[in-house]
């Protein structure tokens, strides 16, 4: 629980902080100019401040001669936009690392753990159906952190198993 809180909190805090930090590449003034007389439409993109974001500052070189500039610029639409590339970068990295961890854990749970249990440690595992209660009993006898984690994991596994049964096998919820 704590990790998720921290994650979401950290994420929201970093994102709000990061989005206030402006990278110099993260502003643009984009002018879209439609076709005019024999000039085809064009898009101009320039890194200027918000007050300079208009056709006269951004459209360079001006494709039309002096008298037509005003008419040409009236048609252009200039938009000032900001983004935060750091936010995007951090978000994608956070997302991919969580996804990667989950995938690793999934591979471990579905492929590696069954092999470990059945193949390599046949002697230790007297009871093939060791359930949460056994683990609970063991964790009480020698209470250390590892056992507690194991107990929590077993309990979680049982819960997921129960959910899986009700969703995929019995189809009582979410069908």
């Amino acid at each position, binding site marked *: 629980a704590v990790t*998720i809180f921290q994650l979401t909190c950290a994420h929201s805090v970093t994102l709000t902080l990061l989005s206030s930090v402006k990278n110099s590449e993260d502003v643009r003034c984009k002018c879209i100019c439609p076709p005019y007389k024999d000039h085809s439409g064009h898009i101009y993109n320039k890194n200027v401040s918000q007050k300079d974001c208009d056709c006269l500052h951004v459209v360079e070189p001006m494709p039309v001669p002096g008298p037509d500039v005003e008419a040409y610029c009236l048609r252009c639409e200039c938009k000032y936009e900001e983004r935060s590339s750091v936010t995007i970068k951090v978000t994608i990295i956070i997302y991919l690392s969580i996804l990667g961890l989950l995938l690793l854990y999934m591979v471990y749970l579905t492929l590696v753990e069954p092999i470990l249990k059945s193949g390599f440690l046949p002697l230790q595992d007297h009871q093939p159906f060791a359930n949460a209660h056994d683990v609970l009993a063991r964790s009480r006898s020698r209470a250390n952190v590892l056992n507690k984690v194991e107990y929590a994991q077993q309990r979680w596994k049982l819960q997921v198993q129960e959910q899986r049964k009700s969703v995929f096998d019995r189809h*009582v*919820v979410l069908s």
Partner: protein
Amino acid sequence: MESEQLFHRGYYRNSYNSITSASSDEELLDGAGVIMDFQTSEDDNLLDGDASIGTHYTMTNGGNINSSTHLLDLLDEPIPGVGTYDDFHTIDWVREKCKDRERHRRINSKKKESAWEMTKSLYDAWSGWLVVTLTGLASGALAGLIDIAADWMTDLKEGICLSALWFNHEQCCWGSNETTFEERDKCPQWKTWAELIIGQAEGPGSYIMNYIMYIFWALSFAFLAVSLVKVFAPYACGSGIPEIKTILSGFIIRGYLGKWTLMIKTITLVLAVASGLSLGKEGPLVHVACCCGNIFSYLFPKYSTNEAKKREVLSAASAAGVSVAFGAPIGGVLFSLEEVSYYFPLKTLWRSFFAALVAAFVLRSINPFGNSRLVLFYVEYHTPWYLFELLPFILLGVFGGLWGAFFIRANIAWCRRRKSTKFGKYPVLEVIIVAAITAVIAFPNPYTRLNTSELIKELFTDCGPLESSSLCDYRNDMNASKIVDDIPDRPAGTGVYSAIWQLCLALIFKIIMTVFTFGIKVPSGLFIPSMAIGAIAGRIVGIAVEQLAYYHHDWFIFKEWCEVGADCITPGLYAMVGAAACLGGVTRMTVSLVVIVFELTGGLEYIVPLMAAVMTSKWVGDAFGREGIYEAHIRLNGYPFLDAKEEFTHTTLAADVMRPRRSDPPLAVLTQDNMTVEDIENLINETSYNGFPVIMSKESQRLVGFALRRDLTIAIESARKKQEGIVGSSRVCFAQHTPSLPAESPRPLKLRSILDMSPFTVTDHTPMEIVVDIFRKLGLRQCLVTHNGIVLGIITKKNILEHLEQLKQHVEPLAPPWHYNKKRYPPSYGPDGKPRPRLHNVQLKPIAEEREETEEEVHLLNSTTL
């Protein structure tokens, strides 16, 4: 509002010491007198005389609350676990509300004692606002993460940004100067897979390469999504709104709003959206927000210990969810009010409002789309609309209603198939197949290849001079000196005609695929695909009307407004109206939908067209079946959801619905002071009922209270462990005073603290419409049926739902039921056919005649019989 009043009066009434004093005229006057009549029936007063010796009518609601009653009890401190609920059970709203009020009173009374208590009470008062603030923050941040990641992954199907891997297509070309007017999304930094793998950007070879990569990515995203869901959190699949509706109405699904569900739903939602399946992220975002609300409510004891209070937070959280999904804070609040919430007092309204505000603010500051808006398809136009356009708008409404009715039928039929046949055994395979079909068909058509949100954006956007898409390929014959903003209607060019063909194909494709997609085992929302279907249809109609107006501007309807060179039709507006109509047809929302769409566009002048279309679509949809998709899914799954919108029009009485039925074994009851611990344990083991009425004695049969199975089990178990001298033969005493016992007998076990001494009761002649109303408004879990103060049976929420279902299936007989003309309870005959003995006006019933209490166990109703 009404239910809030009822809660209050229920409480005040129960706190009186004497029953008669409760029925003052003032209380009867305020509209809810029906309830009074059930409880203060004359019989009670009559009976007071003979049998109430030793019984004090100190009614407490909710067991271990009223401390004054229990000061002398051994079990003064509450037993841990009493008052909680099992998985898949319904909560008792009345009990929870009373518990909260008691807690509040306790804190208030201690407040003056010390500064520390004062701080605690302040913290308690503020915790509601704190928890919604945290929820808003978290849901805003998660929505930002989902938006950014989903955009990036969607574009990953096409190619990759070589200069910065984390940018999506648009961001990659953000600062590029190489984009041209015609091909705005091309820039050298962005490489398609064909360019990277075979080194050529054009030609059939690269097309095939891109096609293959598109299918490959779509399949792998879908596979990852479904396997993560299956391994870690099966509850993360689906849209979640039907379940949240059920949970908010007072149902417990443990783990549905938990940490793992939250994490897996967030992660797999991105994968599911990116895989190009015909689904949206809006519905699951509501689920994500509710998970946040639930998790944060564990930080505050006020909410973590009280299921009813927790649901207030969840209501606010769902508002925050819609707020970030559509960038519509007010729409979110209304959505929570209209669609999901069951109990929505004003306080929750303000908290929802605040949560929606915080969430929208956080999302805005993350700015996920780089357009300073909360959604991708925000559009803004202010062209006027004309009266004759209401006709096509209403036609779009009809289309939306038809689509909604068709979709609900088809999707429910398909889901029922999945639920009941073998085909449901292969969820992973199903997702893979649907994703493969979607990807193979979607790629060739540019409108289906696009991300659905982008498609909606393109359809909503009006054709200005700045647009270059093929939808805006009109033949330009205007002279160059006209003003820019006001482009007259123009004849369509070839690009528009080919775009219409593609849009028609996309429409058919989306309609079919959405039916099969909604309900597969990945997070899948319905809003976006429905809106896309509506937007496509709307845009087609819009272009048709536009061309009609251009070529026939002398028709009488067009004459007034559409002269040559006037701009009178905006096809983008039609797309928007169509989207609202289709969404309305599927979900049957009205007010909240109009507000959401209105917030999307920021144009006040389009409210009337939207209202017309949404209302029409609701009418048309309701003509084919009254429930929206969420209610239909609730019914399909058999969740115990008592819909407040439906009316109960039948003439049955409480006695017809109550359990036990005539043929059933007798009602399982406890007596107040002459049962032993062993007796009770046997009763609990032999039956599966979730609660037992407690009566005075087998002879008098009069009701004392109601004890829940879970509480009994926990209390007896803890007493056996902690109290000395409690053995199997100890007497269990629910009464205030312990009966005099022989000297050598073991100590009695006092369980008064777990007894609900003010169970709701109705008489057997109460019409069911009133009973159903009580259940809906008060959120009861069960209600006892009495006759002359004698417990006859019990009605639970599940019984009512079964009864409603029965009535729906069998058309009610025209002849009045047997009891219609009878004032009295039918003469009771003993098993031997003779009338039963009477004693002091009280009918005594032999034990053998007693009826069975039904399984209140709200394990889900078996939907195959529904």
